[in-house]
């Protein structure tokens, strides 16, 4: 019996994690105007409302634009940096390595306050550009850590083999180094995209009306008016994540080590 104690505790913890999120699904089909569970009746009216609401669709589009933009910018900065830190020795390396981690150390409220006072004189508050800059800096450390880890596990002999077989440095990089590192880079990119897509605090402070993202709009709707469309958006987002998680489980087998 004692053998099963960890298993039971683990299952309870997993239920605690997932069950609250499951309640969102019936709520999205509920006819109730406010948070009422169990729902008094079911319909798909709030889905129709979401797909015809200008402000919700605009927030959705903003979320995608900002997340894609900051993913691209994050990779442009983090990828070369990972190579620099893993493959070279240079003056000030350990200090700069700490500097690279600063954005994930600082609490989001503090960063948000800083961004607001820094970006408003530049007229970047309430713009896509401002949001993309802010989010990419927040994602750089995570992408950097993921890509650095992939690069540390990279077998340099593969490059040596390519070079001794006559490939130039560029060819070696494009045909040997990059393909091997691709999973690490993809995971880094995914982290950057989803971090921006889910990020609420900085968005609440600096997105304004014009660059409002889904998390910001949801946060404000919950506080002000309890718009039932929130349940629809939550269901769609959770569904998308669930799909992604299931896909990742089917596509690749469990990685050998982390």
């Amino acid at each position, binding site marked *: 019996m*004692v053998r099963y104690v960890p298993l039971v505790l*683990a299952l309870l*913890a997993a239920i*605690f*994690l*997932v069950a*609250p*999120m499951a*309640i*969102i699904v019936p*709520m999205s089909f509920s006819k109730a105007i*406010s948070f009422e*569970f169990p729902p008094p009746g079911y319909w798909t009216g709030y889905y129709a409302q979401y797909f015809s609401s200008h402000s919700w669709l605009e927030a959705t589009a903003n979320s995608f634009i900002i997340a894609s933009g900051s993913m691209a910018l994050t990779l*442009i900065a*983090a990828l070369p940096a990972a190579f620099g*830190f893993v*493959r*070279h*020795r240079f*003056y000030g*390396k350990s200090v*700069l*390595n*700490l*500097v690279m*981690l*600063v*954005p994930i*150390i*600082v*609490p989001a*409220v*503090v*960063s948000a*306050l*800083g*961004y607001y006072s*820094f*970006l408003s004189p530049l007229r970047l508050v309430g713009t896509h550009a401002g949001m993309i800059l*802010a989010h990419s*800096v927040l994602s*750089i450390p*995570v992408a950097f*850590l993921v890509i650095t880890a992939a690069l*540390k596990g990279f077998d340099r002999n593969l490059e*040596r083999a390519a*070079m001794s077989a006559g490939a130039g440095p560029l060819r070696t990089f494009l045909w040997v180094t990059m393909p091997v590192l691709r999973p690490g880079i993809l995971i880094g990119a995914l982290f950057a995209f989803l971090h921006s897509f*889910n990020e*609420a*605090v900085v968005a609440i402070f600096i997105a304004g009306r014009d660059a409002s993202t889904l998390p910001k709009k*949801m946060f404000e709707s*919950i*506080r002000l008016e309890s718009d039932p469309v929130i*349940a629809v958006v939550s269901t769609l*987002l*959770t569904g998308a994540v*669930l799909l992604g998680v299931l896909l990742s*489980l089917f596509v690749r087998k469990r990685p050998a*080590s*982390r």
Partner: protein
Amino acid sequence: MPAFRGAGLISRDSLTAWLLVAPAVVCVVVLFIVPIGYVLLLSVTDPTVSLDHYRRFFTVPLYANVMVNTFRTSLIVTLACLALGYPLAYVMARRDDALAVILLAAVGLSFWTGFVVRTYAWLIILGNKGPVAATYAFAGWGSPPQLLFTSFSSTLGMTHVLLPYMVLALYGVMRKIDPSYMRAAESLGARPFGAFRLVFLPLSLAGVVNGCVLVFTMCLGFYVTPILLGTPKDMMISQLISQQIEDLLAWGFASAIAVVLLACTLVLLGIYNRFAGLDRLWG
């Protein structure tokens, strides 16, 4: 950082290295560290140049209560996450079957779903028309206690939101514990619990430290959940900052509070960095 490998293949020239790291470092310094500097500056210059905000924060009892409440809540959330997360990570790390995959998927699902969505779920569950209230009515227990907008709901919500971070920190370390150590202990006569206590538990402590530091520091400055689920009566630091800005437009004082929050976080992570090295924190 591991020892430098592969000397000679790629130039050891510092210049190349600096060119490679420059975009990221410049981004972080100009677009992050400078803005944080603005917060520091604002805290001592808005509206006038003085240290009044700090004096006020450290002398008014209300703010001391906020600090105490923030640290107490963070500690409760961290311990709750550890209690819930340890068995979960243990089972995930020790099994290699479909169940381990399902549990990993459950953790992944909650890890990748945004804080706002998951906090929203608790608004429904604990609300006065939610399932808890419905259960009370159904069982004939009368009206349920006020659950929402209390420090209980805020603590519960944060535990739920931060649990995946704890589990992944623990899992990252536990996964690397060689199962043969446990078998060796058992074949030498240790009972299952003895093998766990004497072999697995000590080896997993690095994960416990990582998870606790991660969850505690995240909790200290946590914004979304305390604001949506908590009460102004038992404020956390982030609620106080939000209140100062939204209700009072007191940017200077809000910045000073933010600096105090940052200082607390940096001290904790500084201690961690001294003993473990900061880049291990995220596995």
